[in-house]
């Protein structure tokens, strides 16, 4: 265990833990957009930056990545920190003017849009947090979507922006998306996501459509459980 101070509060944290987790365990809120308990932190959104003082050295660090250390003094709301967060939110508001989630977050933090930044008109709500890509690769294991291009052209898509051959229609990407960018529509016996339409399977017990056939086939092939045993929805299991 190590002793550190966050916002004047003396805290004991497990060695190896990051500042963000230590703060959260002690009821200190640090805003984030790309952090999820099941995913590796990447430090891409930069909202969680804090000011950390170790010895004589003070610097801005990424709290989701920076490990706690003995004697570390952390300020989660210093002026420099708030300046970074304000700019990040203003930049994201200009990139995704349609995102309700971002607008809410900005309102909560008292951040107004910067009038000098002309809002983008392509109606993209994606902030490139990479949670969907990570989920698809690390949790689901199909790598159906990924990043393409770099810098301002960077986006999340299926390879060649065509129907993915490996997507199973599970919708995990849409579920983790923090800004409502990934669209998924499930109506009756079909689900459409990333431009591809999947056929849904009915539950053997209640008869309702509950999962894409491709997803069940994938689970069966991965786990070895016969497909027939998977044909029951969660509520009937």
């Amino acid at each position: 265990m190590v002793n550190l101070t966050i916002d004047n509060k003396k805290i004991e944290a497990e060695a190896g833990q990051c500042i963000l987790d230590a703060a959260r365990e002690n009821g200190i809120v640090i805003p984030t957009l790309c952090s999820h308990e099941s995913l590796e932190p990447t430090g891409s959104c930069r909202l969680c930056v804090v000011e950390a003082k170790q010895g004589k050295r003070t610097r801005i660090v990424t709290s989701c990545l920076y490990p706690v250390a003995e004697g570390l003094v952390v300020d989660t709301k210093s002026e420099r920190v708030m300046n970074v967060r304000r700019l990040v939110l203003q930049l994201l508001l200009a990139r995704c003017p349609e995102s309700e989630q971002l607008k809410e977050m900005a309102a909560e933090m008292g951040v107004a849009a910067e009038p000098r930044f002309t809002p983008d008109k392509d109606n993209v709500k994606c902030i490139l947090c990479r949670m969907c890509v990570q989920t698809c690769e690390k949790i689901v294991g199909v790598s159906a979507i990924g990043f393409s291009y770099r810098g301002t052209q960077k986006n999340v898509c299926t390879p060649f922006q065509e129907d993915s051959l490996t997507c199973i229609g599970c919708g995990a990407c849409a579920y983790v998306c923090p800004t409502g960018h990934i669209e998924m529509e499930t109506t009756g016996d079909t689900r459409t996501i990333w431009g591809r339409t999947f056929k849904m399977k009915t539950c053997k017990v209640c008869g309702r459509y509950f999962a894409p056939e491709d997803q069940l086939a994938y689970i069966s092939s991965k786990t070895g459980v016969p497909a027939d045993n998977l044909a029951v929805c969660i509520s009937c299991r």
Partner: protein
Amino acid sequence: MEEKVKEIIQRYSGDKSYLVPILQDVQKEFNYLPKDALYAVSTHLSVPVSRVYEVVTFYKAFSLKPKGRYQLSLCMGTACHVRGGELIARNVADTLGIKEGDTTADLEFSFETVGCLGACALGPILVVNGEYHGHMNIAKSTKILKKLGKKGATDDEQD
């Protein structure tokens, strides 16, 4: 195509960490990166195609579109910039009627700007199919394009 890709991957003993050089060799072979070749790379190197696509689009050296017979690269390094590189870029693009990074519809010319070529004394530099043309200016670039256009036409006649 698949055989060729397999052969290239074999050169690197199927080592995934050589994805970038493998793709460079594939591009050299086909003059660009055809989709089927990328799927073949994905299969034989056991790398998800989304990863291959990510790498291909991330690095500037790769092209998903066929390149023209004449590949023009204009150096946009700082030394070339201060000597008027941007004006030349505009002239070449306007003369060819394409944007930089594109290829003319007849697949005759591709035009791109590149980072420093490290021949700053000769700046601005226009490279045509690997041949350096130094101390470029607007008038000279127009002349080169005209010459290539003519040469292209005579080549066609011979065909």
